[in-house]
């Protein structure tokens, strides 16, 4: 059985909102009937253009947002709008911006102890040990335990927020563009960490990105979104090798080829769409 099952998800926003203002769009229906399944131990990538509703889907799955229509089921149970703390714990989210995802007033130790203590996940004396375990798991040096987030680099913060999510022992991680703000070498660290978590802890991950090559690298399956709908899903290799939907094709064509890629780019200019075609 799938860990997460999303059926007919719709999200609507009031026509005047911050996001609409920011992007100049007036979209009301941001997500229009999305179906998704996430299997245990699977990394599902969601790609698509900016504003296509990726974040909205992620927030619904993680329970930060109530869907206008549709259901989200975790382990077969449909979760209601107001989730119980126990249910919340099962799905955790990792945010795009590593600079705002940690409470600046808390040291890493406090940030990691809190979820364990609040949910009583370990006996009192086992908490510290668990905290250290988590730090090691995400590859953070223990000397950072008493640091406040402002002393950490972007990559370290992102690892810390992953550790905080893991502290709750979730079944599902929802990662919304967790590496977009990071530099390639730091990005590599985080991607490796996520892959490692999946293989070691059998974690299920919903991974959102607009970077095809990152998704190609990390994910098992991919869902391609545009204008609030999923236009194509399937195993990454399949979808990327032989995209069926025109939008997927457009998306892939736009990816600058890695210089070491098997298939070297032939004529870059020709592969690019007409600039006037916006």
């Amino acid at each position, binding site marked *: 059985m799938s860990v997460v099952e999303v059926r007919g998800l719709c999200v609507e926003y009031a026509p005047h909102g911050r996001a609409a*203002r*920011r*992007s*100049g*769009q007036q979209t009301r229906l941001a997500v229009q009937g999305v179906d998704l399944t996430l299997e245990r131990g699977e990394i599902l990538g969601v790609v698509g*253009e*900016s504003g296509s509703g990726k974040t909205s889907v992620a927030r619904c799955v993680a329970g930060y947002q109530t869907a206008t229509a549709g259901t989200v089921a975790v382990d077969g149970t449909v979760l209601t709008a107001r989730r119980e703390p126990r249910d919340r714990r099962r799905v955790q989210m990792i945010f795009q911006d590593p600079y705002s995802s940690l409470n600046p007033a808390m040291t890493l130790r406090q940030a990691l102890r809190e979820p364990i203590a609040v949910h009583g996940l370990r006996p009192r004396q086992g908490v510290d040990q668990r905290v250290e375990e988590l730090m090691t798991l995400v590859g953070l040096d223990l000397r950072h335990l008493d640091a406040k987030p402002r002393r950490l*680099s*972007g990559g370290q913060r992102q690892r810390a927020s992953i550790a905080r999510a893991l502290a709750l022992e979730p079944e599902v991680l929802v990662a919304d563009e967790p590496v977009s703000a990071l*530099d*390639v*070498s*730091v*990005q*590599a*660290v985080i*991607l*490796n960490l996520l*892959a490692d978590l999946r293989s070691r802890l059998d974690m299920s991950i919903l991974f959102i990105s*607009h*970077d*095809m*090559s*990152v998704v*190609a*690298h*990390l994910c098992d399956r991919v869902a391609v979104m545009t204008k609030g709908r999923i236009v194509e899903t399937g195993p*990454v*290799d399949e979808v*990327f*090798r032989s995209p069926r939907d025109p939008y997927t094709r*457009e*998306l*892939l*064509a*736009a*990816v*600058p*080829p*890695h*210089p*070491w*890629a*098997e298939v070297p*780019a032939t004529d*870059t*200019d020709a592969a*690019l*769409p*007409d*600039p*006037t*075609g*916006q």
Partner: protein
Amino acid sequence: MNAPAPLLEVTGLTVAIDAPGGTTYPVHDVSLRVANGEVVGVVGESGCGKSTLLRAVADVLPRGFSPVAGEVRLDGHRVERRSGAVAMIFQDPMTGLNPVMTVGEHVTEVPRRRDGLGRSQARDLAIHLLSEVGIEDAEERLGAYPHQLSGGLRQRVLIAAALSGNPELLLCDEPTTALDVTVQARFIALLRRIVADRGIGILYVTHDLPLLGTMCDRINVMYAGQVIERGSAMDVLRDPAHPYTAALLAAAPRLGAREQALASIPGQPPALTEGLTGCRFAPRCPHVADGCEAARGLGAPGEGHESGCVRVAELAPLTGRGAR
């Protein structure tokens, strides 16, 4: 590739930041050139001084930054401050446009205020420029404010505004980081067309190596305030001659290669204070050896392809991409 007469020539540029903790040098002894009709890339990790270099070239360094050595020449002359010969485009298209000015004002102000064009002439020019960068309903967009435009459109307005001063050199500081790949692809195609049409030079900064491959003629790789490798795009990306370049490439994921873990670079770049000697990458370099602490300029492996690595010859095939 024949090196054309340089449009931009930067020699030995060093920029200092006076900070309470001591002076740092985000750009240290950097030289580079851009010719007319050429797109030159600058690539490197976050914090290696790319933006500072660009701002120094445009002579719009932030407060506290000052060029302390070297010079910047445009067409053989020192860059005359804010003459408009150098235009600049920033990472975030929202922050590059004045939020309280309309598209039209952005594009017409230099022709009107600097060149003294009349209102309607300036307007015609603006419409022309906006169409040139691919905005179809240019006339209607003249009255729009930046926040009413999508990222892709803003980016185009930025270019049109930059072009309105007839620059010879366009500086781009990670202009597509905030955009999705399809918009990015269109943007790059647009830039290339402008280079072709107008014969201007572009200095393009990013930390995305593969991106540079699709658009640059030549690439400069920066590390910790210095250029550590340069050469034609193909040479640098396919046969990196510096362990750092190779490490960056290895860290970038690619389509269809998901088996391997990505190679991250251990450690942190050095603080850019005074007294750094030898190869700055040495502490993080897997190939570090005895000779690395000696200072060395750029040189080898070949004509038009130079590296700052002393071991460049020994390490010949640095890439992990197997036989080619």
